[in-house]
């Protein structure tokens, strides 16, 4: 996505998606300015994962448009591939490639997609492994790392492709409590560097500190969208209020 300052990083317009007869995303509209951080929260099954998976082509949708920078997804195959390549994604279950070392996990796309020479790709990968604070694990296999370390590798792997936008789908939900912080710290660091980020997370401390918008979803719709301060102090929607209550207790 070639970015001009007046173009938002992400523009979702009248997005509708069905699984068979089940209307999973209902008339979703969302604009995300370049450099901003959006936290999406909501009860289980509300469509959070489905929504962010629509932003990088992992899910198809039946109505509406998703525009990343200047590229409307699906309008032009070559541009769609490019937009996708510039969108990094971090999954709840890490999804590292278990048969490849940490370093090879990070260099695979650099070499196969960008055709970067091996040593150039490796030094770039090492740079990002350092950034997520695990340079010493480069030659290990994912199974030899803790969950928190694996998730940081997944972040480094995505960053290697120099994304304009990072998507996170509950990146800390599969982690033991003591590892949540190390991952959130890396994400906070990214936010401070100005990365455009969309995070599905229930880490409300992170949302307060980092987000400039909180989006609350319920039953496939965005029912509330506010600054973190407003959302946490005076949620408007009754379902947002009861959701926050369950999180606090």
């Amino acid at each position: 996505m070639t970015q001009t300052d007046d173009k938002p990083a992400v523009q979702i317009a009248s997005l509708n998606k069905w699984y068979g007869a089940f209307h999973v995303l209902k008339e979703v509209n969302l604009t995300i300015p370049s450099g901003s951080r959006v936290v999406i929260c909501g009860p289980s099954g509300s469509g959070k994962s489905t929504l962010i998976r629509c932003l990088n082509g992992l899910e198809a949708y039946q109505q509406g448009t998703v525009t990343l920078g200047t590229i409307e997804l699906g309008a032009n195959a070559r541009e769609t591939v490019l937009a996708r390549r510039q969108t990094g994604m971090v999954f709840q279950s890490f999804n590292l490639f278990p048969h490849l070392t940490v370093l090879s996990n990070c260099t695979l796309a650099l070499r196969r997609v960008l055709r970067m020479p091996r040593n150039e790709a490796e030094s770039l990968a090492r740079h990002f492994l350092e950034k997520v604070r695990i340079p010493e694990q480069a030659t290990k296999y994912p199974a030899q790392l803790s969950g928190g370390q694996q998730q940081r590798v997944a972040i480094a792997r995505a960053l290697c492709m120099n994304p304009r936008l990072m998507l996170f789908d509950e990146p800390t939900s599969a982690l033991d409590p003591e590892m949540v912080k190390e991952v959130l710290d890396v994400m906070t660091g990214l936010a401070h560097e100005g990365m455009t980020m969309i995070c599905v997370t229930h880490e409300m401390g992170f949302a307060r500190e980092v987000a400039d918008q909180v989006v609350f979803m319920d039953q496939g719709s965005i029912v509330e969208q506010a600054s973190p301060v407003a959302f946490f102090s005076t949620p408007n929607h009754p379902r947002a209020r009861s959701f926050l209550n369950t999180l606090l207790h």
Partner: protein
Amino acid sequence: MSVLEIWLGILQGFRVTALVTLYGLVFAIPFGLIFGVAQHLTTGPARFVVTSVIEFWRSSAVIILLFVFYYALPLAGLALSAMTVSAMVLGLNIGGYASQAVRAGLQALDRGQKEAGHALGLSRSTILLRIELPQALVAMSPTFINQLIQLVKATSLVSLVTLTDMTFRAKEISQIEYDPVPIYTSLLLAYFIVCYPVALFGRWVERRINPAREARRAV
């Protein structure tokens, strides 16, 4: 005839047994890979065609296919050598089984592997070659070794289309000697001596090509 002479007699057939196995693999490996992957990737009518070809080779009786291809095809003007027919029939039969292991290995992978590949911008073919197949083939390697052993044993059928393999030699010797017990016991041992190292080799391969799993075990 001494036991040593029986052994030497049977060993004369070893070359043919080994050749049928090797040429059989030349058919089995590409067939198993291509059709297993094709079954994984195709849908609808294309998948039906792929599945039909696999099922033909997997579900037909090898012995009948040997006869049909060796004795009936020449009537249709297509004469293949006994070695070609044997390697093809045995190879594609085992390849049919192998294709199912390939497909099962691919389908057993977590869907997140493919998604992570897509999210990184990898092409479908790169995902297949660099992410899915390496994992599926490693996971299925014990099955492939089993199938290799089955192939070796199945070569004993080629004596029916005039190839002088170990089984054919044993039959010849027993027609001269009228003493089947030591002869067929020796033959039994001969197949074991060929197959057991294959099994050992299989275990070694498994350890070699699976550094991630070994590393996990070492932790």
